[in-house]
């Protein structure tokens, strides 16, 4: 596990090399082994200095997330015992503290990615030498999973960089290159991989020796190394916290964190607390503060929900865990994109970036070229930001052929259709392209609302027809909702997943139903916003409380962005399709009023629920006349919050009930990535689990009493409540990972 080699010059090299794992991680076994190795090196009188190294390509990837998820699922010691486990005796924090105050110089010889707990071990060293390889990332990304670095990371980073810079890195969870880490002062020395290569140093083992040699050199030059914070007269770099300048900056930082999270993400606040409470105390007291705050995060459901959805289930989706295994992996060489509007243009870009040739087809060459111009614009920005070379830009652009000629689609092994949401047009382009493309080509249709099975009727090969619902802007939105029609084959599904993986996006798999999963559930949020308005809730209150739930855009502002005429068109189409089965929603009357009578279409017409001018937007005062404000009460804020989130969670449960979506993990990440459902909840089904199915059902029943049948839970949810079931079984992530 940890191989200690005491070299002739008196330096003990502790090499991390966990058996049966591709990467080193911190778990109970490896921590125990490491503690033993450190204790031995510290107490061995022949050891003059210590180097931490790794035999893997990564240095140490971080803490074992299964262990952390287990903690978050309640598999954790009582607080007092947890403190002792970390801070006393052979606890990891106690051991690192012994290591850094032992009087023996300790250096991290970092030859691979060191993140989270792995990088925290490096911070507890007196000196850090890094191999500057392009793939190496360093940092403390715990915040991205609702946690904080609990192995001294907040305290050491804060004392090394000052609280301002430390806060930036800790709150964002940034992963830095070696160069960037050096410039920020997180590491002390970097060895350029290219320079080593020129000096004849090739291969990981020799590179590692070179880094260890540099580490050893530092040890010999600094025989009595001590951490800055253990030296007399230490002051925090970057100035004090409570002087007028510090106070101005700290209030700005606190306010920024508070409003950007709306107080919903405990880890973001806890990181600030670690810096404030801990940095103004001794190192030992600071470690205790950090441990206390970390324990608080484990006791809260947020971290467990975030780890499950943002890490485990995201990983499962991206690794295509649900892909039919029997089908060979297909790489797409030539892809046709039909329709060069906003969606088509974005799909063309990401497809070309994946290495495929793209035929971007529209009614005229002019339209098609405009679609390609989008790629030019986006790529040019990347070049300007130094993220892409000019030649790489040209290479990607050369792969996009704008055309209006269907014969150019010849040889395509995939077509993604992204024309108007109109059945006749879609049918027409389907037939025209199927006449040209390969017989085994997959036909993907990008629609957000029209049922796939119906669209497939226009296809001569419905088993090769599948829905690929992209989100706008395509190059920035990570999700693709894959919709299987009745006829869609397993092979087609597998190959559609291959395509999504090829363009580096995250797929969820859903079944064919009006609105599929994402559009259907998301629609309930705007409808609920409309219902609140109709009931006489003050518009500003609706919007602000929606923000407080963590939804990225409040419902009335969102409707203005979508535009009310589009809402009306879709609803009227739905009504025409469903006939007597059509259920009227609150938004139907409002959108009719706004479009037909008031001519307020939304942002694009400069007026909707809001009035728009150069100075920004303000709610339209006329709303008061059409939707008189009713009586207010103290519980209103909490109830509106509840309604806006529950209506979405409930609709997700219905989708689950109806088989529209069959994987709870997909449901959660689809919501987070697709429409910005607040990540701190873990997603709509995680939210129900967290509330408790039983309580959720009871609260929905109460809401149904007050506000109507749309809050009525499905029978399956009642059954789950009775049986004490949950959507995500406890510890499910462990077995799944």
């Amino acid at each position, binding site marked *: 596990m940890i191989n200690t080699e005491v070299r002739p010059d008196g330096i003990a090299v502790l090499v991390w090399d966990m058996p049966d794992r591709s990467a080193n991680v911190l778990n109970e076994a490896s921590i125990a082994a490491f503690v033993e190795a450190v204790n031995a090196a510290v107490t061995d009188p022949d050891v003059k200095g210590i180097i931490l190294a790794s035999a893997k390509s990564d240095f140490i990837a971080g803490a074992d997330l299964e262990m952390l998820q287990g903690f978050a699922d309640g598999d954790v010691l009582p607080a007092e015992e947890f403190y002792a486990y970390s801070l006393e005796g052979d606890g990891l924090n106690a051991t690192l503290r012994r290591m850094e105050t032992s009087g023996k110089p300790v250096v991290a010889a970092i030859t691979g990615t060191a993140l989270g707990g792995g990088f925290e071990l490096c911070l507890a060293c007196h000196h850090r030498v890094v191999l500057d390889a392009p793939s190496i990332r360093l940092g403390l990304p715990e915040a991205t999973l609702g946690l904080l670095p609990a192995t001294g990371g907040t305290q050491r980073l804060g004392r090394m960089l000052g609280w301002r810079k430390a806060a930036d890195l800790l709150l964002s969870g940034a992963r830095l290159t070696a160069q960037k880490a050096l410039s920020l002062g997180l590491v002390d020395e970097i060895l350029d991989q290219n320079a080593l290569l020129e000096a004849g140093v090739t291969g990981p083992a020799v590179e590692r020796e070179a880094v260890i040699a540099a580490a050893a050199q530092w040890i010999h030059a600094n025989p009595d190394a001590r951490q800055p914070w253990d030296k007399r007269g230490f002051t925090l770099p970057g100035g004090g916290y409570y002087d007028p300048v510090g106070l101005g900056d700290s209030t700005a930082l606190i306010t920024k964190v*508070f409003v950007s999270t709306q107080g919903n993400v405990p880890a973001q*606040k806890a990181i600030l607390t670690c810096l404030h409470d801990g940095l103004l105390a001794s190192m030992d007291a600071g470690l205790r503060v950090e441990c206390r705050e970390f324990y608080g995060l484990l006791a809260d459901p947020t971290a467990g929900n975030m780890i499950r959805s943002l890490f485990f289930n995201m990983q499962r989706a991206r690794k295509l865990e649900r892909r039919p295994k029997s089908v060979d992996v297909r790489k797409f060489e030539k892809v046709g994109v039909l329709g060069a509007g906003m969606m088509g243009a974005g799909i063309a870009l990401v497809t070309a970036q994946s290495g495929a040739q793209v035929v971007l087809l529209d009614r005229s060459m002019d339209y098609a070229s405009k679609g390609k111009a989008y790629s030019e614009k986006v790529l040019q920005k990347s070049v300007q930001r130094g993220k892409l070379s000019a030649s790489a830009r040209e290479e990607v652009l050369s792969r996009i052929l704008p055309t209006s000629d269907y014969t150019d689609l010849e040889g395509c092994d995939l077509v993604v259709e992204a024309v108007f949401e109109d059945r006749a047009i879609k049918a027409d382009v389907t037939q025209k392209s199927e006449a040209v493309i390969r017989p085994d080509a997959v036909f993907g249709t990008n629609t957000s609302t029209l049922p796939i099975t119906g669209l497939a009727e226009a296809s001569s090969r419905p088993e090769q027809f599948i829905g690929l619902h992209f989100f706008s802007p395509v190059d920035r939105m990570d999700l693709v909702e894959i919709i299987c029609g009745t006829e869609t084959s397993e092979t087609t599904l597998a190959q559609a997943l291959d395509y999504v993986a090829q363009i580096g996006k995250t797929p969820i798999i859903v079944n064919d139903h009006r609105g599929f999963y994402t559009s259907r559930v998301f629609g309930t949020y705007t409808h609920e916003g409309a219902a609140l308005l109709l009931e006489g809730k003050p518009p500003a209150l609706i919007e*602000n409380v929606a923000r407080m739930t963590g939804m990225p855009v409040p419902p009335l502002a969102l409707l203005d962005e979508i535009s009310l005429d589009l809402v009306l068109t879709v609803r009227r189409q739905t009504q025409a399709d469903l006939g007597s089965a059509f259920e009227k929603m609150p938004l139907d009357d409002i959108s009719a009023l706004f479009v037909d009578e008031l001519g307020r279409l939304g942002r694009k017409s400069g007026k909707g629920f809001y009035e728009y001018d150069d100075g920004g937007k303000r709610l339209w005062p006329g709303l008061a006349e059409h939707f008189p404000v009713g009586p207010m009460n103290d519980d209103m804020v909490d109830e509106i919050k509840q309604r806006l989130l529950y209506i979405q969670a409930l609709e997700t449960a219905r989708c689950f009930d109806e088989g529209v979506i069959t994987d709870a993990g997909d449901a959660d990440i689809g919501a987070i990535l697709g429409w910005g459902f607040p990540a701190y909840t873990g997603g709509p089904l995680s939210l129900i689990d967290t509330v408790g199915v039983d309580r959720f059902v009871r609260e929905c029943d109460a809401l149904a009493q007050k506000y109507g049948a749309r809050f009525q839970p499905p029978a399956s949810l009642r059954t789950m409540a009775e049986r004490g079931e949950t959507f995500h079984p406890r510890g499910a992530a462990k077995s799944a990972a």
Partner: protein
Amino acid sequence: MSDAYIYDAVRTPRGRGNAKGALNGVTPATLGASVLNALKQRLDLDTSDVDDVVFGCVSPTEEQGGDIGRISVLMSDFDWSVSGIQLHRHCASGLDGCNFAAALVGSGQADFAVGGGVESMSRVPMGAGGSAWIGDPDVAMRTYFAPQGVGADLIATMNGFSRLDVDQYAVESQQLAAEAWQEERFAKSIIPIVDKNGVTVLDKDEHMRPGTTLDVLAKLPSSFAGVGRDVGYDRLSAMRYPGVEAIDHVHTAGNSSGIVDGASAVLFGSLAAGEKIGRKPRARVRAFATTGTDPHIMLTGPTPAAQKALKRAGMTASDIDIFELNEAFASVVLLFMREMGIERDCINVNGGAIALGHPLGATGGMILGTVLDELERRDAETGLINMCVGQGQGIATIIERV
């Protein structure tokens, strides 16, 4: 519990609280000593009869730190047997100094006690003392910390006070203060600051702009729109008061209290102690009270504090001849007038901090003296002094001539 009586009240002129202010070169210890010396001289006081000096100070750090109350005693001609204390309740500190001194007397634990306060805002800037309220994330988030100006703007927004309303109020404050100076209404209490060589440093309030018009005020930029937008306090307010769509940032340097330097001292004593030295009291303390309110909007405390004090005194608002509410921000006074049903002609009748300035820890003692002078000038009986206070508090004191 016996009554506490007011024997005298003095204050320094208010110097502009910046590098160009006349009092910028005068230390807080000198300011504090000056008002104590004035009490001694005016009453020919044997200061060994005084038990304690209770001085408010809002930035009790640097040269105002380490108990500016006792330092003022030591620097004055007071007998060193007089103890001194500094206390802090934000803007209320000076009035609290008076109330605590009155409480010492009223509880029989002092024969004479001095209340008041010291603040040199030009030498020890606002905020120099730091605060967990602002810097500790647990405290700041729990209380939705925002600067008080954001709360003042929020009060204006929620109550429909327009920029014109607050500017109009500010113009009146300037006019009334100018008239008061013209008619020498402050002369009774003002102690000119004289340096070691007998040269007068300042003998008049320095912050006033008597010619101020609505046009001039209308041109001033909003003081808090910038931080509201850039720091995010507006979005923070939306979390606390989600019914408010957007804050109308109406307050400017022209309709908010001025930053100034100064000190105040008020001598409280029992009736018996006064008789012993052959002095008659000028007024009696009827009641005082403090209260806590929402710390985010922060400045809504004056009404509940006034009501609490009135109730304690067995009085109603109509029993009060003149009100004096510190003009921290115009909207605070407009709200108090609306909530209490007070007409403009019986509140802040000689202007207030918008024109004269608000030397934080000293202000309470200053405006108590102003009310006392005005009651005597009008031959009226009762006055209520109150203030809005940081962290969501209010304070009120009712005095009555004897």
